[in-house]
């Protein structure tokens, strides 16, 4: 927890200019990323992926397969990194933990009545504790967007703080579900609330609502992290999730990260991609870099 005297007044409006933030974020896409920069970027992006399956139809078998993929992305290409984590529902944490044992790949679990967050606080806390007890290294919680939009910022703040406490040693990712907050000002405000309440990560989306992560929204959050860092000296990690399926877009995100927060954030401790299809697209690009030809999608496993 941060000492209360420096917590800002969340009733004050933040100032984000829509035109300006969109212009700035499009500027990152003008960077031309070639050769070794591209190769390093792709490797890093691969290593930052939270490989995700969050479906009602998920089974033990599906999760095990995904865990295998997390460690063995594409064995014909030697020297590939693993992904950063596997992201599953709490009921799958135990399976995933066992499958990933000794690999260094983290287990992240969504919790707090994901994706809607429409449950009472004690249920959310129990949901969180269940995931942590079964071995989750990271917890991805959702904020109560209804309360937030009603202006009940204290409620949202306290809830995040309570979940953080329930997490124990697990790192807490706070999902703002920016697609439901709509404006950049609200995204900024929710980011500030989450960080001051104890978030280790702030995360854009559940992936269940469209639009999910976009570059300008991620930039608003990165700038919030930057201001928080300058005020407190504490680093917060960032996770855009949903809608990042292509390597080129992932590289644009990395450029944005590098030019907003600098090189200290350029690792999977401080940045993640919440994505399921991105890994294969990066693998395709890496094989293209190596062999000079784009390979058929059937050469890459779908898990």
């Amino acid at each position: 927890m941060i000492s209360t005297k420096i917590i800002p007044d969340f009733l004050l409006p933040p100032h984000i200019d829509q035109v300006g933030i969109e212009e700035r974020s499009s500027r990152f896409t003008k960077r031309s990323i070639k050769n070794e920069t591209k190769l390093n970027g792709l490797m890093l992006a691969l290593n930052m992926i939270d490989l995700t399956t969050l479906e009602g139809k998920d089974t033990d078998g599906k999760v095990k397969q995904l865990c295998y993929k997390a460690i063995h992305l594409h064995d014909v290409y030697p020297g590939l990194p693993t992904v950063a984590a596997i992201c599953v529902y709490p009921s799958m944490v135990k399976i995933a933990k066992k499958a990933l044992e000794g690999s260094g790949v983290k287990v992240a679990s969504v919790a707090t009545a994901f994706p809607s967050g429409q449950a009472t606080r004690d249920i959310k806390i129990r949901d969180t504790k269940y995931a942590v007890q079964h071995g989750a290294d990271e917890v991805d919680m959702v904020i109560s967007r209804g309360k937030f939009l009603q202006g009940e910022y204290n409620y949202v703040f306290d809830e995040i703080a309570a979940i953080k406490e329930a997490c124990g040693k697990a790192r807490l990712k706070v999902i703002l579900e920016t697609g439901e907050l709509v404006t950049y000002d609200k995204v900024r405000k929710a980011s500030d609330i989450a960080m001051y309440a104890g978030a280790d990560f702030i995360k854009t989306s559940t992936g269940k609502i469209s639009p999910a992560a976009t570059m300008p929204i991620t930039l608003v959050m990165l700038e919030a992290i930057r201001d928080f860092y300058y005020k407190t000296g504490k680093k917060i990690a960032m996770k855009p999730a949903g809608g990042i399926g292509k390597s080129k877009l992932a590289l644009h995100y990395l450029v944005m990260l590098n030019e907003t927060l600098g090189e200290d954030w350029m690792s999977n401790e401080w940045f993640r991609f919440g994505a399921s299809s991105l890994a294969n697209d990066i693998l395709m690009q890496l094989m293209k870099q190596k062999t000079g030809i784009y390979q058929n999608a059937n050469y890459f496993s779908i898990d």
Partner: protein
Amino acid sequence: MAKLVKNNTIKLKFDSVKNFAPAPESKKAAKIDPQYDLFINGKFERPMSKKYFSTINPATEEKLSMIAEANTADVNKAVKAARTAYDKTWKKMPTAERAKYIYRIARMIQERAREFAIIETLDGGKPIRESRDFDVPTAANHFFYYAGWADKLEYAFPNRKTTPLGVAGQIIPWNFPLLMAAWKIAPALACGNTVVLKPAENTSLTALKLAEIIQEADVPPGVVNIITGAGVTGAAIVNHADINKIAFTGSTDVGKIIQRAIAGTNKKATLELGGKAANIIFEDAPLDQAVEGVINGIFFNQGHVCCAGSRLYVQESVFNEVVRKLKDRLETLIVGDPMDKNTDIGAINSKAQLDIINKYIKIGLQEGAEMYQSSCAMPKKGFYCRPTLFTNVAQSNRIAQEEIFGPVLAIQSFRTDDEVIEKANNTAYGLSAGVWSDKGSKIFNLTSKLRAGVIWANTFNKFDPTSPFGGYKESGYGREGGLHGLSAYINLV
């Protein structure tokens, strides 16, 4: 347990930002001839002066080509060609036909956009990203826009009849060579005038490429004449008796000379001169976007922009935060080879200009201002200047009063609205200004009190052919762009 940290004890690290693998645009995609002649009466002709001068790439100091130097006899020939074309062809041509030629020029610029961008960058030193994404497309847009007006002048000036002025002598600067040529030629042609245009001696190549397009587009001979040379050639145009209008963009000093020279003559004039624009950040501004706007306002085109936001006023309550954000942003600017697609700040246009900028940096230090420059590595050859901020600046400092025309920003703080209005207006210039605030009423209060031709709110350096551009006070008179731009090239009857 995180605790409050003082701003100066922690710092983000951006060294890795500059480590992009090279991504150079190919020089081979553009053809530059070893020698260029004068474009008079639809043909490229050797100068009667028999003299040529060399033009160099300021990023490498290598010679690019030889350019003809027009003397008074050449100017006379060009004006005569323009007069004949005006009397015999262009004035009489149905307006819709004129429009077709202008549209054709616009399309051909688009078709050859890459070639134009490369040459603009090689000749002028500006980053390829800017010439590709700004200079060339905006130039084409200008021709498109005025082509549209060519047959609709009676709607632009309802219940009035318009007549062209005749022959326009146009002299343009080296900071946006192709774009300034477009700003001058497009409205002149649309209104039925013929032109003699002289690009700046450092950056003649894209204007000469434009001449090639004008030739290929079958524009009647003499309607557009492009002659090259330095100040003497320009003076010959200004003093020519058979020219009806002078359009000049450049320094205030030369603007004053021109104004003296045409005093007592029948020549009309539009002058777009220097500037020392104030960018004003209030505490309720979107700070990160304001910082970005300030960066683009002063470092766009290496600061070689007459409307550059070279003075920054920041409200005291957010002063330290804004300066810290500016410094961080400065560290992520890539200075280097203008042909590299990742370069943000290219080469200073000439050795002479670099000397002027360095002189002002020295003056700033002598005046006691605090300097901050980005820590980037600089190319060994060519003319480069680090992006530079000055804090602890006084209104009476020369770096806050005089146009530097380089990547140098003078930052001051202010407390109240009235104070900043007074300070912003306290300049000999009045070309542009910027206001950053989330509060609409405050913005309108300021925009009505700032004496500048263009005022941007929560943005900076935005240009559009539909929007008029021009200055107050020593920034000149007359407007270019939009409907206002038409009135500079017609008589209303």
